[in-house]
């Protein structure tokens, strides 16, 4: 059988690999990967991601003493102030993460952390503890490409998850099945691979964990734990939480479930069961190494098949970060992006429910689509209005100012909708060096691109040929804006 794996990466191949495993790459980023053998490229990606650490310190609140729980505060005024603080904290945490995504030299590390945030979806709305959301974030980041088994065990003892799925309220005399149900349905096995009785038995195994909210630690209290014998997924034993998780991982459905989800993230919306199976087996035999599964997927024929290119939809985070990375636009603060992505349906640390963001075509609604288009349109209008080819600054151009005012207004609206307060005193500088971005592609800000340059621009901006031809006479930056408004720009 002939393989679709290229011997050496062309620039289109490199863009496909980088766009799928990170955010949309700039032409300069792409050129550094052209000519590599796929296996070398994938290994380089994985090594970089495993070694990656954040470039900026997380917001200061993450290092402060754990906040007093609302319930222990003296009065409603104190509670209201604490809620406002928590909302501001989570916005600054989301902005910090977006900034990491924008600047990371190993974007796969950020994408995998985001993948697990969506898989083990936990929302600030219920956890109400921004510091706790950061504790969970670090756990996801730490294991993002490591052992899925360790990650799963860590998540089950993570205070935010214990609060979010009521694990902290699960005790022998009052079982709570919330976590037991979701861990099988959404985290390990998928529907149809367990019965209601398994949920009741697993809930008994998970009982006894509580959260010390003063220290934000998980604590096991043997007296609240159901120590009796359980029958879980056909096995009998005095399972505790860890043992119950391992029983789940022993199911044949487990590795295939995770690999199938990784497939939908990186390869296509429709996993091929025959291709998933051997990857799932190696995933398990590798000791649940996530990097091993990702490596297999990225070196599969399906990943490189022409039919599977440009078949996935960019999430709002991918769209925003992708645009900034692709065009090498610098932004002093990622705060406006919190509002932008939130409006488009993806507020970090606030997934809609335990299933996470539904993703794929659900990202594109009439509402979100207009907003997505408006985002790039305004970005380019603002850039176009500045001095052609010059370094641009938010203070230099009225259009840029307008964009930023718009971003601030949007942000305030989004924050208000989420009942959050905007941190004061932020300024948002935006810079784009159009001349040096366009020049290597044979284009210039003040000329209509010729045939060869047009091809290069299309290839640099879109993962498939445009659906709508760019009108003749379109010049420089307007050309990029037109391409960003093409329906294909929504795809990766």
């Amino acid at each position, binding site marked *: 059988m002939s393989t679709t794996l290229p011997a050496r990466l062309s620039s289109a191949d490199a863009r496909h690999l980088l766009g799928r495993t990170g955010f949309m790459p700039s032409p300069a980023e792409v050129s550094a990967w052209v000519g590599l053998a796929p296996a070398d490229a994938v290994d380089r990606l994985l090594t970089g991601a495993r070694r990656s650490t954040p470039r900026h310190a997380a917001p200061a609140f993450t290092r402060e003493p754990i906040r007093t729980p609302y319930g222990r505060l003296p009065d409603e005024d104190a509670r209201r102030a604490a809620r406002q603080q928590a909302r501001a904290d989570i916005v600054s945490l989301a902005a910090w993460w977006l900034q990491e995504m924008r600047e990371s030299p190993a974007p796969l590390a950020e994408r995998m952390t985001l993948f697990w945030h969506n898989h083990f979806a936990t929302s600030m709305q219920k956890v109400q503890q921004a510091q706790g959301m950061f504790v969970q974030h670090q756990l996801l980041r730490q294991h993002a490409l490591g052992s899925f088994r360790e990650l799963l065990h860590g998540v089950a003892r993570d205070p935010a998850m214990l609060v979010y799925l009521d694990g902290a309220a699960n005790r022998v005399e009052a079982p709570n099945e919330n976590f037991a149900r979701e861990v099988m349905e959404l985290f390990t096995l998928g529907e149809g691979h367990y019965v209601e009785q398994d949920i009741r038995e697993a809930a008994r195994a998970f009982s006894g964990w509580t959260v010390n909210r003063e220290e934000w630690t998980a604590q096991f209290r043997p007296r609240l734990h159901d120590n009796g014998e359980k029958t879980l997924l056909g096995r009998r034993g005095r399972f505790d939480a860890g043992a119950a998780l391992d029983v789940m991982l022993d199911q044949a459905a487990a590795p295939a479930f995770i690999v199938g989800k990784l497939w939908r993230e990186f390869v296509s919306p429709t996993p091929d069961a025959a291709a998933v199976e051997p990857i799932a087996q190696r995933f398990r035999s590798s000791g649940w190494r996530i990097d091993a599964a990702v490596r297999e997927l990225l070196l599969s024929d399906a990943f490189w098949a022409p039919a599977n290119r440009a078949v996935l939809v960019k999430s709002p985070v991918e769209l925003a970060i992708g645009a900034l990375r692709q065009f090498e636009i610098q932004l002093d603060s990622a705060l406006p992006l919190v509002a932008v992505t939130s*409006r488009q349906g993806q507020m970090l640390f606030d997934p*809609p*429910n335990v299933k996470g963001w539904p993703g794929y075509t659900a990202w594109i609604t*009439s*509402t979100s689509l*207009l907003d997505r288009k408006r985002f790039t349109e305004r970005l380019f209008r603002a850039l176009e209005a500045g001095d052609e080819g010059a370094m641009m600054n938010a203070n230099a151009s009225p259009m840029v100012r307008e964009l930023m005012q718009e971003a601030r207004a949007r942000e305030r609206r989004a924050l208000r909708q989420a009942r959050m307060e905007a941190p004061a005193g932020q300024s948002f500088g935006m810079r784009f060096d159009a001349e040096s971005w366009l020049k290597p592609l044979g284009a210039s800000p003040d000329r209509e691109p010729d045939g060869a340059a047009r091809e290069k621009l299309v290839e640099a901006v879109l993962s498939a040929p445009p*659906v709508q031809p760019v009108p003749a006479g379109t010049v420089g930056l307007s050309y990029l804006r037109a391409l960003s408004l093409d329906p294909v720009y929504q795809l990766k």
Partner: protein
Amino acid sequence: MDRRQLLALGGLAFPALGWAQSAASAAGRVLVLVELKGGNDGLNTVVPYAHPTYAQLRPSLALKADEVLRLDGALGLHPSLAPLIPMWEKRELVVLLGLGYPQPNLSHFRSIEIWDTASRATEYLDEGWVARAMSAGLRQSQRHTTEGVAIGSASLGALSGANAISLTNAEAYVNQARLLRPANAQGNAALEHVLRVESGVLQAADGLRGQAVTMATEFPPHTFGQAVRATCQIVAGQKGRGGVPVFHLTHGSFDTHRGQLGTHANLLKQLAEGLAALKAGLEQAGAWERTLVVTYSEFGRRARQNQSGGTDHGTAAPHFVLGGAVKGGTVIGTMPDLDRLDGSQNLVHTADFRQLYATIARRWWGVNPEPVVRGTFDLLPFLEV
């Protein structure tokens, strides 16, 4: 076989055709959903002023018997709702009591999702109930400009999954839609989806474009009043075009954990002013007789007030149905028993909110309610049609 024979046969073999028949007369009907965001306090909206327990539960929040606008010997409206009284007297306002659902969820987010998707408390659905009504026959029976418009909130709520859009004002929306151009391309499923949504946006923008309608009606300057103005303008501008069958408006936040009295009075005043303006605007547009207005909220609030002069998250609540076609001036259903609260000290619902939706599906739209509310629910007698 002609159509008449087919229908006669269908009467026996396909009872669904009965709905299809009434669907024809449903053309041009408008449903306005008004979401009272944050959980409206039902007990201080439709007040059981004569019940001794009411005042006991709410030492400082209880409204006095001589303050409320009496509907009957047991219930009265919050005094801020005075602008609704003319509609009550004209029999264009119905009060539905005790709406809720089993195993109530006290999370704002999850509970409104349950209301929006008409799901059970234990199931997660992606599509709103309006979208399911579209699939159940409403889409085929009418040619809509767009299937729903959410005004003032990006979230489509009950309209999710329908060919619906959200906007703040129609002119701005039409203006934004200029970023889109019609395309006749084909491609993979994801691209097809984007193209389908684009064409929906363009279609909606086409329907909404045109001469701005000047309304003689005065609309309140507050956000809700302006959303009402946008609704009336769209309905007025759409005469004879198939139009927009469903609007989703939001008002609030009604999340009154603290110092409820003044906040709630103000919110209800704005609500009543907005609804009165809606009636006036739609009468001017000649559409009031074919409009149904329904309020809803994720939950009511705790029966007993808390220590901060507010109320915490609760369960069942009354809601309003208004319009030129309602059988109004009546209270439908049973007030939840103030002396028998549930385990979380909350009211126990006496009617399922899905009865409301089933009634709209069947009586307003003429579609089979079962796929809409995913089950069989008794209808509520609030419509003449």
